[in-house]
């Protein structure tokens, strides 16, 4: 059994930090790295449509409110633009017959600083697995962020379009539009999330026990997601109902299914 330990450490490849090491040479022929760029074989209909290039952007998926079950779909559209940040890794313990069982819980926020934000949490026996799992869950939870202007419409949108509120547990977070240059006026956790969402200026108001940082982050996330839920007057115009991608590309899906 003593060999088990060295074999585990000797194996090459740098696991979850693949984004940094992808593309680097594997040494002068001696390195035994595992192949990073595995071919993605989609298992959902949406995945097959995305890989086949039928869907042009992530926004089309949001328009029809289709659930995204594969994180590779998000990677396909946003890929390198996404930056993840581990908010917290904490050990959690559970009492079992054989003593204490320690696992690690990772809270991860992901965003491209330009209109997309996601939050994920995962618990696992190993820290690296927890981080990896949390990143995948964060990608699956990505929502679009609507930004607007304060006052005059010059340049690009920089703040929330209207006052939005999010609530999780006892924590209530309200985001309020701010003029350009204000920056984000809030506690550190919402500040990180708002920056990753691409909101440059915002006032916040919070209520409840903000020391439960998990609920605080989730409440901010819900508030940011509400920006597209709010039906503002400029969206009142009636538009014809468009066909969903499953109907539009039904023959593409049938063709692919038959080829398996």
């Amino acid at each position, binding site marked *: 059994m003593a060999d088990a330990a060295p074999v585990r450490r000797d194996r090459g490849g740098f696991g979850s930090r693949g984004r940094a090491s992808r593309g680097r040479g594997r040494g002068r022929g001696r390195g035994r790295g595992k192949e990073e760029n595995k071919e993605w074989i989609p298992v959902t209909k949406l995945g097959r449509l995305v890989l086949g290039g039928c869907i042009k952007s992530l926004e089309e998926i949001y328009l029809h409110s289709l659930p995204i079950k594969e994180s590779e779909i998000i990677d396909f559209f946003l890929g390198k633009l996404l930056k993840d940040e581990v908010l917290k890794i904490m050990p959690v313990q559970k009492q079992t017959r*054989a003593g204490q069982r320690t696992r690690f819980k990772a809270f991860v926020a992901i965003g491209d600083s*330009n209109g997309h934000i996601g939050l994920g949490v995962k618990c696992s026996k190993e820290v690296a697995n927890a981080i990896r799992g949390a990143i995948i869950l964060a990608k699956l939870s990505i929502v679009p962020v609507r930004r607007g202007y304060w006052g005059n419409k010059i340049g690009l949108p920089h703040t929330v379009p209207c006052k939005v509120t999010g609530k999780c547990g006892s924590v209530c977070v309200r985001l309020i539009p701010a003029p350009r240059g204000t920056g984000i006026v809030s506690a550190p956790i919402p500040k990180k999330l708002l920056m990753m969402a691409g909101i440059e200026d915002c006032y916040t108001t919070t209520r409840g026990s903000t020391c439960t940082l998990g609920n605080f982050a989730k409440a901010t996330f819900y508030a940011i997601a509400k920006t597209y839920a709010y039906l503002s007057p400029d969206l009142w115009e009636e538009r014809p109902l468009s066909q969903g991608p499953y109907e539009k590309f039904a023959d593409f899906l049938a063709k692919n299914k038959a080829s398996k």
Partner: protein
Amino acid sequence: MEDSKTVSTIIGPLNFSECSKTSSQSEERDVTCLLCSKIFTFLHEKDLYLAHLFLSHKIVISDEKIIPFLDEYLVYWRNKFQDKNISDPLSEYCTTLLLNHLPDGTPAVNEKYYLLSDVLPEDYELRNKLHQKRLEQVVSQYQFERSDQTFKRECLHCREVITPTRANFIEHLYVKHFVLLGKVENLVFIDELIDTVQDKLDKLVCLFCEGKFKDRSTLKEHMRKKGHKRINPANRFYDKFFLANYKNEMEKPGTGAHTAKQSVEQMMNSVQISSTAAGQSNSDSDWSDWEGEKQNLNCLFCSINDTDFDIIKNHMKTSHEFDFDVAISGLNFYEKVKAVNYLRRQMHLLKCVSCGEKFKTIKMLQDHLVQLKHYGIGNKSDWDHPEFFFPTFEDDSILCNLDDPNDNSTDDAIVIPEEPIVCAATQMLESC
């Protein structure tokens, strides 16, 4: 406000709190003996302390090597032992052993020795708590090292300076020089690890077998030929650099990651997991167990701070005769923001809020405010300017408590339509 024309009114970024990073790891601490009043400095006099305990008081602490924060453990037990209510703490808390010799080795008959171990539930709880604290400390260090972008170090073998993360450094060592220190995701205290490795190379000692060599080129040849360009897993000194070992700290040292005992434990744990599958998935995605600290709020007129806004408001009512709610009633959110920022700025510039008189010290300003009862938010014409939209203090938490999240009246909700958003990624796809 004549001086605003000649003097720039822009004040640089202000913060209430200065973060001071204190590393508690290497703090030397004085710890008194459990029973007498002899003092030892931890950490470097730890062995002397334990020797004194054995020789003078015949007390032994079981498994002291795996107790993290031994000084805190001893301080806790000293408090318990010195408690006047308990007549004989030794027999109360320790298990008594009878041995046939004195501490210095001379034979005797039925000498009493006392063992302080985790058989006692209180001791077990304490050790658990310390172990948990250690784990949290290690994990936060791991988190820091993982995301820190300010790392910069010259490679051990070549002259290249590696930056910005430690992951790049470890990877460079593997890819370019085939030195495998470990998978980055398993390592912690990486700086110390690299220092140790560098030290060994400088002393011309092999990393794996600890053999000494004449010069650098012989050492390099040896390490290359024998495959010694890695850490010896049997060498227990390097255990502290691998994250997995901290999880297993409660067990006796010497059990690796895959001993028979542990595999039995894992099987038992997995039985537990399957029986509480629903419970496990609940705690898996539970967001509410991450506890942090509440933000500090600073009084508008003095340096009193507290985490509860109601306490600060009461303080301002009693100490400064200033009712915050009354003063800002009738203003909309943006006006409240401007008023607070204006007040903060005036206080920072040591000017009276109401009359604008400038003072030399904060004490003189506060005396003036008390005497003439000039506490207030000033005139609307003073603060109703767009420059006061920007927060005077970057971490001013009072600004985060001005609106009522439950109030859904949208008095100033005008949404200006923006252009349809085109995802940057698809723009790239379309262009190529």
